[in-house]
């Protein structure tokens, strides 16, 4: 079974630039999560999708972050414009359904904002 795929693996941008991350969940997984993991901290949930609908985006900084999962499969997370404090690893995870306790994580995209 293929795992959660993410790209790119690394990205370096200057502040005020835009960046986008892509995630392809495990086949058949209805629920998709985006987490932000700042160095030395645990992952923090940004947004959760059930199929193509948003379940929870309460911790997503909506003035600069956006995410979509138009066809209920892969997803993109965008930051526009980026700030220095956005430097982090962005992790995508998926689970069979909301309420399923096992979330499978991708390798993450490491973002550095200069």
């Amino acid at each position, binding site marked *: 079974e293929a795992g959660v795929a993410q790209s790119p693996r690394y990205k370096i941008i200057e502040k005020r630039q835009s960046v986008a991350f892509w995630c392809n969940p495990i086949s058949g997984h209805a629920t998709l999560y985006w987490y932000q993991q700042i160095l*030395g901290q*645990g*992952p*923090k949930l940004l947004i*959760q999708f059930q199929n193509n609908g948003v379940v929870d985006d309460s911790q997503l900084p909506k003035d600069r972050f956006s995410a979509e999962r138009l066809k209920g499969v892969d997803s993109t997370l965008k930051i526009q414009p980026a700030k220095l404090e956005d430097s982090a690893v962005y*992790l995508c995870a998926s689970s069979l359904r909301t309420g*399923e306790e096992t*979330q*499978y994580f991708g*390798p993450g995209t490491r973002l550095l904002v200069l």
Partner: protein
Amino acid sequence: QKEVEQDPGPLSVPEGAIVSLNCTYSNSAFQYFMWYRQYSRKGPELLMYTYSSGNKEDGRFTAQVDKSSKYISLFIRDSQPSDSATYLCAKGTLLGANNLFFGTGTRLTVIP
């Protein structure tokens, strides 16, 4: 108050030692608890999860939950250099959205 508090370490032990990793949590309703292992530059991978107080064992790993004191622990017996990683405790809620709240992680190094 954070949902989950975890001692960040780092923790270094000799090979073969018993490792104890600990977290405390707030809010008690309909919770379940998980331990994830994260190797450097990798995503977290689930080690164990448990719903109830008491111990749950899986090979060299034992997860322990004490709901009366809101304390969760992970014990690793006969630790190996391959166990060197960051260990994250997490708390989830059985009702509604499956949001996980993670601790900061404890970085463990097992010295050969």
